[in-house]
């Protein structure tokens, strides 16, 4: 199903473009299908760039906005993820948790409640597990600019820095926490906070996937070599509402500055570099669209999750 992206012979650049395109297409369709879905359009470079250079045995904890493509990059099935969003049977979470969770056997830190910030703790614990086992596995954890103000941000960055844990914290800074603009709750760049823990703090253009990857590479190497955590602030822009059906009246009251579309930017760059033609890009996008459409069609007809998944026996104890 993911043929367009996974197809052999595609250049690295085209593969990345393919994942970003797939995310965009999927997002659009999910927004149409579920008014409560959280759109990620415009944030693909930050999302994909943060996770695309990891090993399969590394752990990931993805921000709730836009994680599905990340899970697919690791091998999760689009249909099962879509089932979660549509409330259909077949989801990894059996319709129990919030729909932006992913399968744990792919080393994914699951979303088990909607409370922001706690995933930073569990992600930090994944890095701790790797240090305990003496391996060179690492964890990458993304979170929003609003989430960066939860106490857990502070406690975990400090703990990770104190213990030199192999983890990279990435703030997917899209300028908003629902209806509140970042300037109202972030007096300084998030990256500035790194100085408080004596770890690298790096701001990067989050709509330039190459820039995100370059910044990540250094942080990933640092973590893998046992030199501890880093904090990266990927500046991006929430192109749509907080949720799909968000009327966004607040946007007139708090006007913001749009950023260029990361998909367009990256496509243009591939063309400039001579890595791809406009047709190549169109073809990838079409393929992504088709894959999404057929998945949606298949999932739509599935029954809703229901009492059968209540799982009274799947609670401990």
């Amino acid at each position, binding site marked *: 199903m993911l043929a367009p992206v996974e197809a052999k012979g595609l250049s690295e650049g085209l593969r990345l473009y393919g994942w970003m395109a797939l995310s965009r297409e999927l997002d659009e369709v999910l927004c149409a299908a579920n008014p*409560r879905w959280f759109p990620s359009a415009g944030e693909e470079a930050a999302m994909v760039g943060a996770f695309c250079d990891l090993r399969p045995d590394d752990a990931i904890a993805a921000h709730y906005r836009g994680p599905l493509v990340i899970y697919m990059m690791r091998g999760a099935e689009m249909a099962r993820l879509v089932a*979660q969003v549509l*409330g259909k049977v077949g*989801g990894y*979470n*059996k*319709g*129990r*948790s*919030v*729909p932006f969770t992913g399968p744990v056997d792919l080393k994914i830190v699951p979303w*088990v*409640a*909607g*409370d*922001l*910030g706690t995933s930073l703790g569990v992600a930090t614990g994944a890095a701790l597990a790797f240090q305990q086992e003496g391996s060179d596995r690492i964890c990458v954890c993304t979170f929003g600019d*609003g*989430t960066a*103000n*939860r*106490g857990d941000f502070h406690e975990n960055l400090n703990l990770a820095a104190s213990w030199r844990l192999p983890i990279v914290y990435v703030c997917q800074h899209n300028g908003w*926490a*629902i*209806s*509140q603009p970042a300037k*109202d*709750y*972030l007096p300084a760049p998030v990256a500035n906070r790194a100085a408080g823990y004596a770890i690298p703090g790096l701001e990067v253009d989050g709509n330039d996937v190459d820039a995100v990857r370059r910044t990540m590479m250094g942080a990933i190497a640092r973590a893998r070599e046992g030199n501890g955590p880093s904090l990266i602030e990927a500046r991006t822009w929430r192109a749509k509402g907080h949720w799909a059906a968000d009327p966004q*009246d*607040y946007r007139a*009251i*708090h006007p913001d500055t749009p950023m260029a579309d990361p998909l367009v930017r990256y496509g243009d760059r591939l063309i400039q570099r001579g890595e791809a033609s406009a047709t190549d890009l169109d073809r990838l996008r079409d393929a992504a669209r088709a894959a999404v459409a057929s998945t949606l069609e298949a999932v739509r007809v599935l029954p*809703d*999750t*229901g*009492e059968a*998944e*209540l*799982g*009274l026996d*799947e*609670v401990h104890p």
Partner: protein
Amino acid sequence: MEAVIEAIAVAMREDPRVFYIGQDVGAMQGSMQGTKGLWEEFGPMRIREAPISESAMVGAALGAALFGQRPIVEISFGEFLPAAMNQLINQAPNLHYMTGGTARVPVVVRTRVGDGPYGGHPQDYSAWFAHVPGWKVVMPATPVDAKGMMTAAIRDDGPVLFFEGMSLSHAARAPVPLDAFETPIGPARIAREGRDVTVVAVGSSLPLAVRAAGELAAEGIELEILDLRTLRPLDRDAILASVRRTRRLITVHEAWVAGGIGAEVVASVVEEAPEVLVAPVIRIGAAAVPVPSGKVRPHALPNARHIVEAARRVMAGTRA
């Protein structure tokens, strides 16, 4: 709930010390439109938008209260109360007592729980707070009570936790008096009289009980429904008086059964008069799973059918 907003607006007009702290309570008018109109009327200094920092929000409200203000702090959903838990537990309920009775902390913590149109964040942790001396804990079930109890909460000189059952925002519009009025914190209310079984219902479970009562009446089983309204302090007298009449007891709430407020209701009866019970009590609540966010959720939560079946069972179990 519009009734709650009205109570807040009236209080803010009356008393300049009343102000509001929350997330998305300004330009967006609140989660589930829960602060509609307030920001326009009172502006950003009295309707304060906070960072995603629940612990600081509650701490700031407590400190502001200690120093002469009368804040209302909104935690968008009850599921986020744990993020502020040490302020909510080790500070709020202790301040008055631990200072030898000198500190006053007029704070209202407003939050949303349970199932409802939004669907997310359904966990209901209200029972924890009913366990803790120093808190008043209310969960109104009707728009009139929501307004009257919010007014009472704002006027109270100590911390009050105000839970809004999310499913109630669906509720049929009932006429709510326009002026400020207080519904006292503490007394439960007989929502329906009936001779056969007392159903103690909490918040959003009240409409379920009412529906069940209608159905059961046709079978000749008359439920007496007690709308609990306040989880702490518990109206033990009202509970006992009703059970003395009906001699049978069912409790129903959206929170989990084990350790839920239903257990306290039951215990309050058998501490006084176990002999009045002529049938085993039945407690209805969320299934013993973390309440699912997905479409499994309704299957984990109480409904009218549960109450109907429970009532039939307690009637059958009668030994008298």
